[in-house]
């Protein structure tokens, strides 16, 4: 190590789950989207560095067009990074993705960030007429084309997944000349190597089990960048969590909506309903960052140190959680947890 201070960025990440009001009534899709805009504004106010929005095409989530929501947030904020988590590039058109994000970049004075990936669901494939069997070639070709487009020079490209381009120039150009782009990765080693190959930073999705398992993956990324002669970027991670004043309160509020969301997804995938023991196990040993500000800060600091990441995004609002509890979560994260994590990291460097 260089003895340099360990600078870490902190983000929040949501799929745009439909929240409930204080009378437990589900918000409408439109209200849920406006709620996310309000949350982003609050996040900026309390010092959170980034907000990432997922793309889903399912009844329990309001956000299918995260870039449009980010455009809305862009004009109401001035500092916070506006990211997706993730953009499902395989079932999208890289040219359009570039155009949409360079537009957000204009609206936000350079704060747009794309996180590309597979995502945890694949409902966009039948919806947009793609075959899941072609997943690998779709992702590989489109990542490659997107990497070309990011250079903001005329692109000549040929492949099997979209029309060829012959010196196509794509607009608007950005002011910085570059849209920050990361690749979101689950536990698959091939995707880690792919990120290194295309010179993209990694965003690790650690959504279950102990983060310790990912230590060798970070080594894999570093060695792969060396082998390809690409840059070893700082690595990001995201994991789910929730914060309230006390551990008991956080668990009491998070558990019922978490279970609802988990079991609903599980039903379509064939896994059994989650038990409270499993939920508690993930909080204590796994990758659920749920509890009081102190509990969550300690757990985050441990993971950040263990994996040496430069960014930590907390995925919030799983299931029909109260909108007011989500706002409270953001406030506690910004005002209590982030400063405390910084303190814990600094203590260690002294």
């Amino acid at each position, binding site marked *: 190590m260089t003895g340099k201070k360990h600078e870490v960025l902190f983000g929040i990440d949501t799929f745009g789950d439909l929240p409930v009001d204080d009378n437990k009534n589900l918000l409408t899709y439109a209200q849920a989207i406006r709620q996310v805009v309000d949350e982003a504004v609050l996040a900026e106010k309390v010092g959170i560095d980034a907000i990432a929005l997922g793309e889903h095409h399912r009844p329990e989530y309001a956000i299918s067009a995260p870039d449009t929501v980010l455009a809305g947030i862009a004009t109401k904020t001035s500092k916070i990074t506006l990211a997706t988590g993730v953009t499902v590039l395989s079932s999208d058109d890289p040219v359009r993705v570039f155009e949409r994000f360079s537009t957000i970049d204009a609206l936000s004075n350079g704060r747009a960030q794309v996180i590309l990936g597979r995502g945890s669901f694949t409902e966009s494939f039948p919806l947009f007429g793609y075959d899941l069997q072609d997943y690998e070639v779709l992702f590989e070709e489109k990542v490659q084309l997107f990497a070309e487009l990011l250079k903001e020079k005329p692109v000549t490209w040929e492949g099997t997944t979209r029309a060829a381009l012959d010196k196509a120039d794509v607009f608007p150009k950005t002011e910085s000349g570059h849209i920050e782009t990361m690749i979101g990765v689950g536990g698959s080693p091939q995707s880690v190597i792919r990120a290194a190959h295309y010179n993209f930073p990694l965003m690790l999705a650690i959504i279950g089990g102990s983060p310790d398992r990912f230590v060798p993956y970070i080594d894999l990324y570093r060695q792969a960048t060396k082998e390809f002669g690409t840059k070893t970027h700082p690595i990001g991670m995201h994991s789910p969590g929730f914060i309230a004043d006390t551990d008991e309160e956080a668990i009491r509020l998070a558990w019922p909506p978490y279970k609802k969301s988990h079991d609903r997804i599980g039903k379509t*995938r064939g896994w059994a309903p989650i038990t409270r023991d499993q939920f508690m196990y993930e909080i204590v040993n796994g990758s659920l960052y749920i509890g009081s500000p102190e509990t969550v800060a300690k757990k985050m600091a441990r993971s950040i140190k263990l994996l040496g990441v430069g960014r930590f995004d907390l995925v919030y609002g799983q299931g029909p959680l109260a909108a007011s509890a989500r706002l409270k979560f953001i406030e506690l994260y910004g005002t209590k947890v982030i400063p405390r994590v910084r303190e814990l990291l600094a203590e260690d460097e002294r």
Partner: protein
Amino acid sequence: MKTIGILGVGKVGVVIAQLLLKAGYKVLLAGSGSPDKIALTVKVLTPGAVAVTKQEAVKQADIVILALPLGKYQTIPKDELAGKLVIDAMNYWWEVDGDQPDLKDLTTSTSETIQKFLPESHVVKAFSHIGYHELHDETRPAGAPGRKAIAIAGNNEADLDTIAGLVNDVGFDPVIIGPLAFGIRLEPGSDVFGAHVEAAALQSMVDHFPQTELGKKVLSARK
């Protein structure tokens, strides 16, 4: 020591390889492409294992583990697998495999479909129901309190014993649940799928299968 060949160097293939290496087995790994495509992964994530072609992995191994997407099963080198003991760790997963009617057929377990595709191999189902996080995090020495269990289904007693020994070696209690047809009791939609529990709880989930929603559907499809 026995040599194990693993086809599929993804989330599960890597973890199984790590556990086997720790238990002292010799491990050969093969992906869909050439060995140099996975060489770095193997070197960093599973030091001690060897990256080879699918054919080599099968030829040199005493036991072969299938850890590739089930939808790709027709690419498995079936001639080379003749006479071999094969562990099927695969599940039908819509998010990866897409819509595949032959894999959704309730009258046959997916492991029976694999056995039919590999008529001269001995197929045993194991390692399929436990998530790769838990597989990595939950190993315990034999006899340790709280040791988790892995279910095994197969048609030949000697094969079942061999695989039970392997499951025990890597840190789990083996629970032999019955013939390969019982593999459906471990598939997505069953109570066992995703379960990381101790042997007695696992056995009772398996026994309870006929009373579950999936169990009833299976029974009526097989009438």
